[in-house]
């Protein structure tokens, strides 16, 4: 018999034997090449300049490449947008390049649409399918071809635009869920220009942010984060002051000197209150007829609507007027409410009254298309407006349902099947299109609606050019392959050029190049010329630029307030839903990259799943505590999520980040909660703040991971 002692002896001996038995040296292998590539030097890194393709901000990157592999992405120090800085999304582009779920070859539908069942086919077969359909449509009804993409900038946009025009179809729709529709309309009314301005934050002394998200997910977060840093610390004796108005303590709000909570969708009213005080106290000379319009917006009146104290408004207005240059910025939340045009116009009006338009420390409108002036009217194809394209997509969907489209070409990362509210019925409309081709790197909610999926190279493997939306004053960035493409991919412009050649006639004449690279070579001087030098730097920066377009001075007009409020009865749905773009996933495109999934949200510290932020008092009233499961119900939909308590959010607001809740975007994006976009109504505008919700406690089988104590960030007791 084995007694206890013997057992321990034996056990000990076995444990040691096992432990140290494992220490035997494992022989490593040295595997040489059979035939080495020509330019290959082991252990030697090369840096290639290109463009980050992870969001529309268009930052310049440099990529460290050794042994033929991209190893690390950094910001391009020469690039005017980001000056050597890069955000987490840009860093994660490496994971898109090496992603195990990337499409390696063309895929043909092998089941029902949307089932995700595909079988690989050769490029010959895929292209013959594409050409058969294109030829048939062109011969019978050319205007029944739809091209639905994200806004494509640079010569790729020229190729797509010319292809559609020569093909004979006017139906080219560009969809960008975070497009700035309301801001464009507001700026047209106030500045007289339908464009997004450059905000010269670095030289401003006073910044008013109206739900601004310029430090996290705005139009160019890296650019503005750097400008913000310069505003705060680059000038001796001047430290710019930031005041943030909004319904939620966002990352930008947390970086402000003063966070003033206001009711959701009322940011513009606060701006009008400030404008009123500026005019009333004689800080503005010659306000003209705008003074009459402002008369109604006394701080007391604004307090009633927004909850911001009248004396605070007066004090901030005084400070703002006495510390020029002052600048006012509206963010995504202000621009996606039900009355967004009016709200954004009110904010823009502050810039006009502060007299900062076209001045250092203010707003200006550079001519972004100047590098493409040789294309004349076609320049708009290379620099598309920063609009969302929502009205166009709604029209297109109507036509789809009527059977007007016989073929659709889909492309881009904006994934309409995921980012459009289900109430719009995108999937149903797409099912009415007989043949759908998608250019994609991954199978997502939209590309799985296609009959044929053509794999495209990632931004790190393709040629291209780009003009960023802000921060560059018209400079052109060049995009080059930093590695040999890993898969058998072809870029969309290349396929379109080849297709045009085969179609002959007009399309062939409109796209007279052999490949997209040839198109770029022709445009930029080609190898041996200017282009080669520019490729080394990352683009054409610092060339002599034409003066910025003149914005209209004075005579600014406020558009009519629609007076519309959020969707839903306040009694049945007590909380206003506040949807904000996620700093990690942007509009949802980054959700399949594990680096971004495991990045804690900077405000809530939550990881891997989505959540709903509620004020602790509101939560207590509903019997909810940290991490509880709730159903979030709006008049249009219902989803489940976990509660995160945020004392910096208005008590009548529930906030959710966008980007999670994918159903078809691979294993890293799947099973991470539900898509909050499904709570939105199918309104006339893509209004992320346009609905009300009700919360009800429920039991969820999942839990929410957070990297900090749920209360630790804000409850002083827990910090002691």
């Amino acid at each position, binding site marked *: 018999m084995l007694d206890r002692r013997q057992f321990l*002896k034996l056990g000990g*001996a076995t444990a*040691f034997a096992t*432990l140290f038995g494992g220490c035997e040296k494992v*022989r490593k292998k040295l595997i040489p*090449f059979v*035939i*080495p590539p020509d330019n290959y*030097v082991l252990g*030697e890194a090369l840096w290639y300049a290109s463009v980050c393709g992870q969001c529309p901000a268009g930052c310049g990157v440099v990529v460290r490449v050794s042994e033929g592999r991209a190893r690390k992405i950094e910001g391009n120090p020469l690039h005017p947008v980001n000056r050597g800085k890069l955000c987490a999304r840009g860093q994660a582009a490496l994971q898109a390049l090496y992603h195990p779920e990337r499409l390696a070859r063309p895929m043909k539908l092998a089941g029902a649409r949307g089932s995700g069942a595909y079988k690989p086919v050769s490029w010959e077969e895929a292209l013959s399918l594409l050409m058969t359909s294109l030829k048939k449509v062109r011969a019978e009804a050319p205007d029944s071809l739809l091209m639905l993409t994200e806004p494509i900038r640079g010569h790729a946009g020229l190729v797509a635009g010319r292809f559609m025009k020569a093909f004979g179809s006017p139906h080219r729709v560009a969809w960008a869920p975070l497009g700035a529709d309301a801001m464009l309309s507001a700026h047209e009314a106030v500045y007289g220009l339908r464009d997004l301005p450059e905000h010269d934050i670095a030289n401003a002394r006073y910044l008013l942010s109206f739900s601004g998200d310029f430090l996290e997910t705005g139009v160019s977060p890296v650019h503005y984060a750097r400008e913000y840093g310069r505003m705060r610390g680059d000038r001796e004796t001047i430290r710019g002051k930031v005041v943030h108005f909004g319904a939620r303590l966002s990352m930008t709000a947390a970086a402000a000197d003063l966070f003033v909570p206001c009711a959701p969708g009322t940011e513009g009213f606060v701006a009008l209150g400030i404008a009123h005080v500026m005019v009333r106290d004689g800080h503005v000379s010659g306000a003209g007829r705008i003074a009459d319009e402002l008369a109604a917006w006394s701080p007391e009146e604004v307090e009633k609507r927004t909850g911001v104290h009248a004396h605070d408004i007066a004090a901030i207005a005084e400070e703002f007027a006495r510390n020029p240059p002052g600048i006012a910025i509206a963010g995504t939340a202000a621009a996606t409410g039900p009355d967004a045009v009016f709200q954004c116009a009110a904010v823009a009006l502050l810039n006009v009254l502060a007299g900062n338009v076209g001045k250092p420390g203010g707003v200006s409108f550079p001519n972004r298309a100047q590098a493409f002036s040789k294309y004349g009217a076609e320049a708009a194809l290379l620099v598309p407006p920063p609009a969302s394209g929502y009205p166009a997509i709604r029209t297109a969907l109507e036509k789809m349902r009527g059977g007007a489209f016989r073929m659709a070409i889909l492309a881009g990362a904006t994934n309409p099947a995921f980012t459009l509210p289900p109430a719009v019925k995108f999937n149903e409309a797409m099912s009415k299109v007989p043949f759908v081709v998608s250019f994609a790197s991954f199978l997502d909610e939209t590309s799985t609606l296609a009959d044929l999926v053509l794999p495209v190279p990632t931004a790190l493997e393709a040629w291209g050019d780009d003009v960023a939306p802000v921060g560059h004053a018209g400079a052109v960035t060049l995009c080059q392959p930093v590695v040999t493409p890993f898969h058998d991919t072809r870029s969309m412009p290349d396929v379109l050029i080849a297709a045009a050649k085969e179609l002959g006639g007009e399309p062939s004449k409109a796209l007279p190049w052999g490949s997209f690279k040839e198109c770029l070579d022709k445009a930029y001087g080609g190898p041996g010329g200017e282009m080669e030098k520019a490729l080394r730097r990352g683009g054409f920066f610092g060339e002599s630029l034409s003066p910025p377009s003149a914005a209209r001075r004075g005579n600014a007009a406020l558009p009519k307030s629609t007076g519309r409020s959020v969707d839903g009865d306040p009694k049945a749905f007590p909380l206003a839903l506040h949807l904000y773009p996620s700093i990690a996933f942007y509009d949802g495109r980054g959700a399949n990259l594990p680096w971004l999934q495991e990045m804690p949200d900077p405000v809530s510290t939550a990881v891997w799943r989505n959540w709903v932020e509620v004020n602790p008092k509101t939560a207590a009233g509903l019997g909810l505590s940290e991490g509880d499961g709730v159903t979030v119900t709006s008049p249009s939909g219902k989803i489940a999520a976990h509660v995160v308590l945020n004392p910096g959010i208005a008590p009548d607001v529930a906030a959710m980040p966008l980007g999670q809740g994918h159903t078809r975007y691979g294993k890293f994006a799947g099973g991470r909660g539900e898509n909050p976009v499904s709570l939105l109504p199918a309104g006339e505008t893509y209004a992320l703040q346009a609905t009300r919700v009700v919360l009800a406690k429920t039991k969820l089988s999942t839990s929410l991971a957070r990297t900090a104590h749920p209360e630790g960030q804000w409850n002083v007791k827990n910090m002691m």
Partner: protein
Amino acid sequence: MARKRKSDALVMPILALIAASAVFFVGEPTSAETVPQPIAFSHKIHVTDYRMNCRFCHSSTNKSQYANVPSVEKCMMCHRTIATDKPEIRKIAQYWKEKKPIPWNKVIDLPNHVYFPHRKMVNAGIACLTCHPGMDQAGTAVQKIEFGMGMCMECHRKKKVTIDCWKCHY
């Protein structure tokens, strides 16, 4: 009695530990040991008999951190015509025919967190045989001296070059 048994129970595992660690520390294959290789390549024939420069095959020693192992293509540059009837050369030809790399076993390996750039040494004029003595007389690769930090430091001190920790450990 009880006491003795108690110590007995302790002694056994400790003995086992000593025995095991002896195997661990002493029994590790010494670096001079010949490592089996898929092809009985002879450094002596190439370097001593035919007077070939090391860098003919290990061509990235002056350019890179690593002293690369030559590609199969490079072997075949000569052995397409030279000594094609020898059994070992036939093996190379077979790899070449199948377009497969030769799975050499690694002989020299530095611990993790040591950065050793070959090109710095080679470009400073350090002869290959300084660190790889006897390679010119060897068959398949051997490592006759052990790479310890002492060896590096001795030479670095003698030559009055950097002995900063961060130069090699990062």
